[in-house]
């Protein structure tokens, strides 16, 4: 008998005394916490992002290229990673060298790039989270991980939901997803939160709308 059969057999014997029950699970919890207007939801997202040390900016579509240009300049970034489907106009206001998100790039090559600019799949107001799902404007998971500076553009209010349940509904489980709530952090020293470990130490979120 192989281990698969052994384990499944043990499970079945262990449960011999328990009746099967296929009634649906009762879910008495809320879909979202409180009713808000679209504008209030965006404001809550901004507040919660900032609470976990993300730098939050708001701008209109025509201001985006200059804002991104300014953020890269202030950071002193000479190079920026660009996902294949990123709207080219977003980078119209910067001279930083574009580095394409290619399958062949090595991790060491990515490590030499200063910044990365992406869109997102959805953002969660209640938790201050942006979610990436590898769509063309977000690129491979590693490009938002290795560079130390991530600028993430959220289209508001369309891409913003209130809650975790609403976010999961919008995502395709078969796509790899990365949920980002503030820059990387640790609570491992005396259970106190410190920002800045392995992921990007600076996370800037641009609320575009």
């Amino acid at each position, binding site marked *: 008998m192989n281990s698969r059969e052994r384990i499944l057999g043990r499970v079945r014997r262990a449960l011999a005394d328990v009746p099967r029950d296929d009634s649906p699970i009762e*879910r008495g919890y809320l879909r979202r916490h409180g009713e808000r207007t679209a504008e209030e939801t965006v404001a809550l997202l901004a507040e919660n992002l900032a609470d976990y040390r993300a730098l939050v900016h708001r701008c209109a579509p025509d201001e985006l290229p200059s804002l991104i240009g300014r953020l890269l300049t202030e950071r002193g970034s000479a190079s920026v990673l660009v996902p294949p489907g990123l709207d080219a106009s977003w980078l119209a206001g910067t001279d930083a060298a574009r580095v394409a998100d290619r399958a062949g790039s090595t991790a060491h090559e990515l490590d030499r790039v200063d910044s990365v600019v992406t869109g997102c799949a959805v953002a969660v107001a209640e938790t201050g989270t942006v979610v990436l799902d590898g769509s063309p404007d977000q690129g491979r998971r590693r490009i938002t991980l290795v560079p130390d500076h991530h600028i993430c553009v959220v289209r508001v209010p369309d891409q913003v939901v209130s809650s975790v349940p609403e976010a999961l509904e919008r995502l395709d489980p078969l796509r790899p*997803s990365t949920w980002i*709530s503030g820059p990387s952090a*640790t609570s491992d020293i005396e*259970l106190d939160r*410190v920002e800045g470990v392995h992921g990007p130490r600076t996370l800037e979120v641009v609320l575009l709308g």
Partner: protein
Amino acid sequence: MSGTFVGMPAFPEAARDAVRDTTLRGTLRHATHTIRAKRAKAVAEVSDWAALREAGKRIKDHTLRHLDRYLEQLEAAVTAAGGTVHWAADADEANRIVARLVQETGESEVVKVKSMATQEIGLNEALEAEGIRAYETDLAELIVQLGEDRPSHILVPAIHRNRGEIRDIFRSEMGRWGRPAPEGLTDTPAELAEAARLHLREKFLRAGVGVSGANFMVAETGTLVVVESEGNGRMCLTLPETLISVVGIEKVVPSWRDLEVFLQTLPRSSTAERMNPYTSTWTGTTDGDGPRVFHLVLLDNGRTDTLADEVGRQALRCIRCSACLNVCPVYERAGGHAYGSVYPGPIGAILSPQLRGTASDIDASLPYASSLCGACYEVCPVAIDIPEVLVHLRERVAQGGPVTRDGNKVVLRPARGHGAERAAMRAARWAFRHPGALRAGQRLASRTRRFHPRTLPGPGRAWTGSRDLPPVPAEPFRDWWQRTHGGKDGGR
């Protein structure tokens, strides 16, 4: 479980040194009190906490009740998405599978995401024996690995180290494992985190194999979920060519939607955050993004034995948040090492004796490592009634009874060392059934009370070793009641 803990003394002996270590007690008190207050605040933010907790419990109970079906569904979904599923009945088998998979890649080192399952099976030691170096990349795990130490907390394995001790370990040990600590490293947490970033960076960038656990596995889609803070998880899950995840079979949930409960309750319960900095989900392999090869090792190692116990099986609902450790008065004083397992604290006291059985001194003593105050049950986000299971396991240890070990039903004999307790209980039962004898005994005790010792002799000595013997009143309660008609005649 891990060989590191073999031969551990029983909990009371192991705890004695920790309780006398004032530095350790100060460190633990500071850390647990910090997180306690923060958790309460994070939980109070969501008005439907009780409903989320109830739903989490029900999802887990439902999954466990149909575990065979969900495991088969998971296997099919992971396979369809390009992954390979392996089944490991125990720690040795899991270690052999992982070692073989690493050897097949031709690599001799792996980077690891913090994982309780791989700690439990002693994977690092097993890989070392095969000539494979495993680098821990979680900050706390790194501190434990560099310090040749043992983990003492589920979430923060180095909780027993304060910032000064961490700096000393980094200064003296980092150089032996790779890039040394920066010159002039101080003990500020930000600098220590920076030192870890620099030290591990080169290992991430060159890694060919990543080893992880998972917080959840979705049966319906074959999706795995890792919840983390530092980004070391993302590094291990996305940069290497090969990813091997070792996951306990109880980590499965039926549907993608079920994550909506746990992604709300887990971060608030563990690090007291609305959401942890990074959560990664992946389903098999994705063309051009992340590892090209994905192996999932499903681990039993005592879980099906635990599942067979109708009271104890609720321990398998655990999502490893560690809220129960942080509120436990016993954990706060004794620290994690005394529990002799990678699972310390209240959850460890019910998990270890079920996963490993109660044959060793440490495992037989763990159900007693509690004052039964119930704080652990109150904070548990999946409502595990830890005190109920503790009492149930105490009964098993003291009286013996039917249990399942390695899939076989066996009858446990009463443990040694509980003879005096059983004799005392038998005597009490007899006395309560014979009111005349009880009355005579109580009167005799009251009259002789001036001569009573302050500690018990013989087998009772251990009991009074850490407790005062309660003083016997001058008059038995029943006599007082009769004499005064229940206090109506003026009390005394």
